[in-house]
């Protein structure tokens, strides 16, 4: 419907004045939205934290480099030896962590919004473990033959297919004339447990070498990540994050429940399927690159939501916070335990598990109330 032009009856209807409290507009041509200064602040601060975490992570190691030198090299300066160490050896690892963390967090933000339940994260309801089960199957069955291009293409592909398959099964089992968040979570936790069992079984029947390789992988590791790990996640984010930002408009309406959303003209099932597809592909690609790093997808959107003070997890802030969280966890995993380098997933699990407990206890209370 073309909005009819009508005389402005209110003299305060000038640009910049808020006529609805808390909804100050910004308008440039056809583009318009609400000014949310707190979102911008959270985004800027978490970006600074992210850059610092990357610089620290890149600087630490057998050949320490100070933060100023790291930053200079990252932005084009530095001497050749520093350039080699930073850009070729260390940066891909941090960048993989950054991108994987961002992808997981956006995936979590979308799924938590769509299911209207913070527990409906890809790492809780079996999406990342679906990806893992498929990848581990490939590692174990592929044996020594799984090297080079086959590994580079096969593993991500298997993870992606595994994630999608798990998502389809969970969605199918949870669907009863629409999706209810709690049922999705319960079905997902069940599927997750089954997938973990499948992976454990595979590890037991596998040869020692493959079992070791798979074990490191399923703990979520950023060890020895090169540019070949950066590129696929980078590409996925480049396409899927803008898609998520566009779809977040519809996501806002889905939050009100199916009936209200339909009344507002949203094609609910289509919108939800699209959003879940984006979320599952993000989680699958991330898992393919670094294994199922635990809890980043669960925790980051929740932190972002609380910092921003919104009614659902914001995509942009979740992305940056997830990235910063993962890089920081990697920094801890690499350096906090002397000579022993832990997989990053062990650290995120230690940090994230208490939060999961808190959520479970709180939801249990609400369910009883």
């Amino acid at each position, binding site marked *: *419907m073309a*909005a*009819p032009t*009508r005389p*402005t009856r*209110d003299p305060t*209807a000038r640009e910049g004045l808020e*006529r*609805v*409290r*808390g*909804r100050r*507009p*910004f*308008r440039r041509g*056809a*583009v*318009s*939205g*609400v000014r949310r200064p707190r979102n911008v602040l959270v985004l800027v601060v978490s970006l600074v934290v992210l850059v610092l975490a990357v610089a620290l992570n890149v600087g630490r190691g057998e050949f320490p480099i100070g933060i100023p030198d790291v930053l200079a090299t990252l932005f084009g300066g530095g001497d050749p030896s520093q350039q080699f160490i930073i850009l070729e050896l260390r940066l891909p690892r941090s960048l993989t962590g950054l991108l994987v963390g961002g992808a997981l967090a956006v995936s979590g933000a979308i799924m938590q919004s769509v299911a*209207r339940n913070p527990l409906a994260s890809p790492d809780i309801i079996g999406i990342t473990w679906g990806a893992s089960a498929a990848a581990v199957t490939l590692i174990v069955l592929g044996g020594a033959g799984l090297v080079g291009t086959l590994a580079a293409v096969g593993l991500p592909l298997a993870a992606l297919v595994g994630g999608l398959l798990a998502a389809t099964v969970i969605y199918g089992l949870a669907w009863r*004339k629409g999706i209810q968040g709690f049922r999705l979570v319960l079905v997902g936790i069940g599927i997750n447990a089954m997938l973990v069992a499948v992976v454990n079984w595979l590890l037991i029947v596998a040869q020692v070498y493959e079992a070791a390789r798979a074990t490191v992988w399923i703990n979520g590791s950023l060890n020895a990540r090169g540019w070949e790990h950066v590129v696929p996640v980078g590409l996925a984010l480049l396409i899927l994050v803008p898609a998520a*930002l*566009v*779809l*977040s*408009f*519809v996501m*806002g*309406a889905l*939050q*009100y*429940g199916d*009936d*209200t959303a*339909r*009344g*507002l*003209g*949203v*094609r609910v099932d289509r919108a939800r399927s699209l959003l879940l597809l984006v979320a599952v592909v993000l989680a699958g690609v991330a898992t393919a690159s670094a294994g199922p790093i635990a809890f980043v997808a669960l925790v980051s959107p929740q932190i972002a939501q609380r910092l921003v*003070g*919104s*009614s*659902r997890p914001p995509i942009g802030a979740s992305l940056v916070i997830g990235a910063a969280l993962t890089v920081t966890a990697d920094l801890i995993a690499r350096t906090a335990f002397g000579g022993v380098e832990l997989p990053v997933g062990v650290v995120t699990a230690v940090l994230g598990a208490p939060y999961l407990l808190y959520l479970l206890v709180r939801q249990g209370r609400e369910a009883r109330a």
Partner: protein
Amino acid sequence: MTPNAETALAEDTQAPVGPDGSRVRLRAEGVRLGYGERVVVDDLDLDVLQGTVTAVIGPNGCGKSTLLRALGRLLKPSRGHVLLDGRKIDEMPTKQVATVLGLLPQAPTAPEGLTVGDLVARGRHPHQAWYRQWSGDDEEAVAEALAWTGISDLAERPVDELSGGQRQRAWISMALAQGTDLLLLDEPTTFLDLAHQVEVLELVERLHEERGRTVVMVLHDLNLAARYADRLVAMKAGRIVAQGPPVEVITEPLLREVFGLEARVVPDPVAGTPLVVPVGTR
């Protein structure tokens, strides 16, 4: 939105004409409605005329909410059709329907922590796109809807902190901001005390009188329905038993037939509409 814009919107359609010459906005044609195998409503016809407030009444489980869901294209009939301004509602783009027909589900839920301003602004969804989420038109419609329902001062308050009456006003405000001249309300007074029930229904009455809205609502309270609706549709077991002005529908034999209720019907001392005074169930 100005009353002019609303009538202009309604006039470019080929709506069928009812018996008394007024336009039929919504029409159910031989609809069969149900969930899965269970048929709740069968072979039902209903016309909703332009500029009326229609209340659907009937005992629990008679299919009144189901009928309203079908009128609002939330439920697709397994047989028959629902026509909006003469066109099959299922074949219209749902976003286009949302600019003409607004609906308020029974006990709607707002996301936790959402502010009243954001809730009411969500009513503008059908007029927006991902890059255009707060245009001048949006802002004016929302400011007006908030002012009209008397909750402008609450715009920054979280919806979950409001009282039941305030919350319902916020939802009606949202439906108003949507700018549709047809409104479907599913039990808008549930969970409210009597004073707030009256308050909400007075709001509906004003929507109709001042804003020219056509309203269809499901109501439980017969006396309030008789007071605030100008047409009643009485349903029993998925059929329409009687419809028309409240004085014609609310009669002692009908109450006996539809509700199994032995009652006297006297004129309401305030409004003159029929007032049901129960004697007892048979």
